[in-house]
């Protein structure tokens, strides 16, 4: 293939292979190579960057500004760092309404305040009409390292905990695009995950935000590092009524839907009840649930397994090709 195709940006296996083949060889160094959400640098500093191209820029429950702050903040949190400073780079298409830009900037400010981060540097570029699509944003973030995720320390019996329901962000974007011709009351789950930071002191071994590629992709990547196979119980996955209905009507598997305010984590069996209680006390964690475990007797290392609602057992594969371009 000699041209970049859309699916390379889908957050799935195709994108990961592309990065490993095309980008890593040029820069490969020990800090970049693990492809974590944020790099841990000397002096207990964590550093991350992310670009936002969501289409449309406004959607139920947020906009590109909310997303640009929370996405970067969340990458730091799940990498074991307390977010502190964020940069803001705007690439604006000629013709964007000033009122829209103002609204988005207010969202950035509000999201930054909520997450307890400061916008400390930035950049503004304008491109000709047709050379962009409204607005793109890049944010980078710096945080202070409080813990180091340790996927290789996963033990049989460790529990997988999901902090809330799956898929609302995907559904909100679909609704905003009107592509499926249905009205949908679902709001994006876009939110900062800073409330999870104390959990790094409660035995959590590993955490990831469930974004592009969905739960299946995030956990597949973890399974690749975990010394034990992971098993997910489909019946225990929290889903909103709307996500359930959309899954039934549209045939979209919630396992591959994106969130922007949910995380999945690995917790030792003995600490699981405590972590769950902590999560459920927080408004963003009310529907947190234990959704699976690291296995002792089933499967082989590297495998991510799904026990289906009807009792079948199969592999849960990462997302391969693009489900929904430009979701974040």
């Amino acid at each position, binding site marked *: *293939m000699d*041209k970049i*195709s859309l699916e390379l940006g889908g957050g799935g*296996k*195709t994108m990961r*292979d592309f990065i490993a083949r095309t980008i890593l060889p040029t820069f490969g160094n020990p800090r970049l190579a693990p492809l974590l959400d944020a790099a841990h640098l000397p002096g207990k500093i964590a550093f991350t960057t992310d670009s936002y191209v969501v289409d449309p820029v406004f959607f139920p429950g947020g906009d590109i500004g909310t997303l640009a702050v929370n996405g970067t903040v969340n990458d730091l949190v799940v990498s074991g760092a307390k977010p502190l400073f964020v940069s803001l780079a705007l690439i604006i298409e000629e013709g964007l309404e000033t009122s829209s830009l103002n609204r988005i900037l207010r969202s950035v400010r509000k999201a930054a305040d909520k997450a307890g981060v400061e916008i400390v540097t930035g950049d503004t570029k304008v491109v000709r009409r047709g050379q962009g699509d409204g607005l793109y944003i890049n944010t980078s973030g710096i945080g202070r390292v409080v813990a180091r995720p340790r996927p290789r320390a996963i033990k049989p019996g460790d529990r997988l905990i999901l902090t809330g329901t799956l898929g609302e962000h995907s559904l909100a974007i679909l609704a905003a695009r009107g*592509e*499926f*011709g249905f009205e949908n009351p679902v709001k994006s789950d876009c939110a900062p995950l800073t409330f999870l930071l104390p959990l790094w002191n409660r035995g959590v071994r590993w955490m990831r935000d469930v974004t592009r590629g969905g739960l299946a992709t995030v956990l597949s990547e973890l399974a690749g590092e975990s010394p034990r*196979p992971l098993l997910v119980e489909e*019946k225990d996955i929290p889903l909103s*009524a709307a996500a*359930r209905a959309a899954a*039934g009507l549209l*045939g979209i*598997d919630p396992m591959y839907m994106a969130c922007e305010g949910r995380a999945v984590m690995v917790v030792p069996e003995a600490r699981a009840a405590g972590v769950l209680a902590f999560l459920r006390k927080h408004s963003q964690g009310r529907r947190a649930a234990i959704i699976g475990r690291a296995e002792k*007797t*089933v*499967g*082989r290392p590297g*495998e991510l*397994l*799904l*026990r*289906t*609602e*009807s*009792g*079948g*057992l*199969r*592999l849960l*594969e990462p997302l*391969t*090709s693009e489900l929904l371009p430009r979701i974040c």
Partner: protein
Amino acid sequence: MTTDLFHDRRVTAGLLAEIAGLAGRAPAPVRLMEVCGTHTMAIHRHGLKDLLREAGVEMISGPGCPVCVTPDGYHETAIRLVTERENFILATFGDMTRIPTRLGSLQTAVPARGSAVKIVYSPAEAFETARRNPSKEVVFFGAGFETTIPAITVTALRALSERLDRFSVLTAFWTIPAPLRAILTAGEARISGFLYPGHVSAIIGLEPYRFVAREFGLPGAVSGFEPADILLGIRSVLEQIRDGRPRVDNAYARVVRTEGNPAARAVMEDALEPCDALWRGLGRIPGSGLRFKPQAAAVDAAGKYGLRPSDDAGDAPGCRCGEVLRGILSPSRCGLFGRTCTPEHPRGPCMVSLEGACLVHHKYRGPVRAVKRKI
């Protein structure tokens, strides 16, 4: 949710036990063909494939994936349209853009100046695209069975009545009962019974399947797509085997009526007529396709642009999609499967379509070796 019971593992476990009992008394091996790609996907997605095998029932995927049975000649025709004609939009479903042919795929093809491939979710969206782009010709490339054909036909008729003459449809329309006869006549698939498609049957009703019981003495049941629906259909087929009374049972009565949907059929019969059609894997089957009648010629892209999908576009070297579609080869026994043919780099259509047997077998495969079952 009313469908939750259809997923509940207490319900499915009970049905599986009944199925195991019936299968144990039936002549071995019990091999049932699920005709429809949506069934293939549901059976694997819910992990029923292995559970059924343990119960003594082998499920075989059939020809019910429209993207898969459409031979490469059609896809190449679509690629030529968008690469050779300027200011031209080829609209189609996402799966269709990834089918690999001798000319590449619609995704890798470089469109002519002012032309583009547009992925749509419905024929109506393609029609809207035509309305919104007054300087472009728009062709909707639609492959489908009786489930999707009415919607595509309605859109085509709308273009006719609104005289939107820049819009036309490249049809790859297939009818379901015809390939079943072809598979049974060939006699190579060793089938003990059929799980008939739910959505197609909602349109065509039960009558078109009756020849299977009458002429070939084989049982069958129309079934829905939830785990319990599927198991109810399979139980019915096994009961027919036990009783030695093959028929066409309706195990999806909450959606499918015996007579089907006459209104949807009337739409098709008004605008379309049967034609001989070349199927991937099954060859040319008389009267198995549908095409526009002469009065709808203005929306028929084949006539409008003088297109004739070539018959000689064979499958990729080593690709055995044809045998998979005939039910004589399990995807994992193809030499390319999972090696040079993967969902990221498909070599044949059955690894592309979300309902293609190869993709489904690959994506929802069981664990390599379950050391010990623990429930």
